[in-house]
């Protein structure tokens, strides 16, 4: 039982070429919808990938105190209490906060750490080994250095302290090796400087990073911490991963709902178009029936035609999306997923493709197109062949 009739296939292609202008609109429309949706997925997946890479570098458990739902500083000595918990291997504390850099209208992330402390993240470890962080220096990323330079801060940067005084910090070094999302707006400095700029007490820290010896114990310890210290937010790597995933999924979910609407509208357009055959086309079908084509043969030819149009539109859409995202770096769509302040420094999207996304888009384009042509094809196939002769 030969499944595909190649002669019929050839006829379908040849028919489409003869009536190409009728199909061009649909072809372009479907390609655009597929390209748009594929781009959204590619961007979201690339970001997810980056975020997950970032998460890998995070601590096993992150603790931050919360007062009335807002993050608040805690005492540095709390580290000792935490170290006593069974299973906790190491505790690092950090001073962390946002700083609004007015000249360039971006939020900086200030990270205050001490060189002598052991860092959970070996990239920070390397950083502190490489550079000496004293109370007047900062270390920033290459792109941030460029940003500061654009604002005429070549060798040092002014920070405004809560008391109104300016604190001048020298740019002591540039780091690399972090993922774009991590590094982009991060300013590394000593704990003391960070406390000064952020207006915190001399013993204050904002975050505790716990290393846990046995990975399987992480969720147990996290649960224990949540019960023991209900005024702290306790996040495991898993939690952060899921949070990112759900935010991204939510955003892509919105697009997907939009996409659903787009595809259903598309269905109606195709149905409409397929129903409007010119008298020339109708005559051709009539002739075919008169010379021995069955209704099934005509319907099959129409389905082949539909498959060819939909499949090629799908492929064109995917290739367009690939070029748009990975070569042209997705202007517009990219910024929807990355906060505006980041987009300038975003270097490139990681080439991450989830094959199931491709399959998903295929399921939404080709079968829907074919479904839309089923009834019109049948109508055409069942027209009276006798009419042809008159």
């Amino acid at each position: 039982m030969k499944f595909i009739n190649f002669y019929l296939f050839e006829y379908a292609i040849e028919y489409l070429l003869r009536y190409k202008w009728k199909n061009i609109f649909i072809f372009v429309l479907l390609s655009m919808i597929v390209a748009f949706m594929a781009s959204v997925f590619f961007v979201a997946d690339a970001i997810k990938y980056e975020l997950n890479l970032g998460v890998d570098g995070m601590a096993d458990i992150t603790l931050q105190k919360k007062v009335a739902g807002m993050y608040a500083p805690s005492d540095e000595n709390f580290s000792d209490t935490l170290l006593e918990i069974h299973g906790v291997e190491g505790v690092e504390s950090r001073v962390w906060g946002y700083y609004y850099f007015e000249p360039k209208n971006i939020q900086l992330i200030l990270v205050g750490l001490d060189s002598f402390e052991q860092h959970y993240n070996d990239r920070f470890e390397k950083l502190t080994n490489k550079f000496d962080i004293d109370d007047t220096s900062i270390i920033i990323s290459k792109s941030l250095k460029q940003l500061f330079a654009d604002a005429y801060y070549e060798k040092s940067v002014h920070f405004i302290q809560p008391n109104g005084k300016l604190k001048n910090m020298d740019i002591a070094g540039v780091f690399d090796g972090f993922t774009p999302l991590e590094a982009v707006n991060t300013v590394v400095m000593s704990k003391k400087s960070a406390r000064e700029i952020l207006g915190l007490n001399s013993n204050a820290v904002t975050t505790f990073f716990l290393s846990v010896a046995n990975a399987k114990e992480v969720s147990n310890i996290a649960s224990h911490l949540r019960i023991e210290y209900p005024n702290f937010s306790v996040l495991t790597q898993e939690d952060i991963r899921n949070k990112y995933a759900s935010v991204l999924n939510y955003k892509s979910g919105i697009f997907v709902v939009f996409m659903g609407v787009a595809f259903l509208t598309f269905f109606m357009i195709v149905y409409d178009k397929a129903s409007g055959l010119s008298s020339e086309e109708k005559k051709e079908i009539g002739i075919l029936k008169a010379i021995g084509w069955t209704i099934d043969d005509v319907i099959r030819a129409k389905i082949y035609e539909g498959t060819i149009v939909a499949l090629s539109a799908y492929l064109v859409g995917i290739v367009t999306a690939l070029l748009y995202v990975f070569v042209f770096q997705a202007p517009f769509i990219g910024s929807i997923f990355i906060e505006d302040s980041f987009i300038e420094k975003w270097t490139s999207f990681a080439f991450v493709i989830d094959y199931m996304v491709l399959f998903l888009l295929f399921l939404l384009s080709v079968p829907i197109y074919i479904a839309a042509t089923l009834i019109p094809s049948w109508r055409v196939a069942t027209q009276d062949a006798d009419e042809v002769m008159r």
Partner: protein
Amino acid sequence: MLLTPEIITIEILDIIFVVFATITFIIALNVVFFWDKNAYTQKQYKLQLQSYLGATIIKFIFYLKIPLFLFFIYTLDSIASFLPGAMCGAGVVNATEYGTPLLFLKLLNIYLFGYWIVLHKEDMQSKAQKYIRLKFIVYLVAYFLLLSEIYLEFEMFSSLDISEVVDCCGAIFSTTDHSYLAELLSIKTPIMLGFFYGTFLLMFIAFFLRNRYLFSLGNLFFIIISLLSLIAFFGTYIYELPTHHCPFCILQKEYYYIGYVLYTFLYLGTFYGFIIGFIEFEDLKEKNFMKISLTCNTIYLFIVSYFPIVYYVKNGVWL
């Protein structure tokens, strides 16, 4: 409701299924009640033409259902990462009361629609179209099953709660519980294997006797015992873990997607074997179908037996 792109895709296609299946339902009603092949009326002629539309739609639904089923399995797996506790599709299926009947219905419908297609092909061979009424009566039944399936699917996806902890497959398929499933899985291995290989032998005997009813019945038993033995015995050798019984995990990358291969052959073999009991084919065709059925079932048997044998050869002991 969990709103992942995969779920939305499935729901969109479900909407399309419902619309088209309903159109066909109306056609089917007309055929079942008003078909009169000796009538010479405009009405009968119109009905005839409509029956072609109905057949086309049903074929479309069936051919789409198959990749969609695979996609559904993949979706279950992907949802597993959102449900705390679930580590594969089994956890997701078990998370709601709808999961198991949904899965069961989906499998049933794949067999049912496949049967319809074969019936239709047979019908179109004869000018008398002897199956015209039968096939649309079958469709009337299939329509309700399809609608139930879509309804359950919608309900299942709507009621997934990411804050509720679910059992993972280790818990679902444990043999120490007091559940119905646990009792089935506790059947002694020699007895279960006896049934398994015995049913296979039965099918061979039926083939030589050219008895289609026996063959069909044999295939029915074979589906049941294959799934049971896969979960209870053979699966553990694929995972090389005596407590890992899950029928979903073999679909994952770590096991080279062997699950897809196994289930495909099992489906093809039992499908062809099964329909022989329901349709009277001409001798040559019947023989061919029996051969296809036996071949696929044999391949399934070989692959599934390979694992325990290799394990024994490598390790000298059974699990």
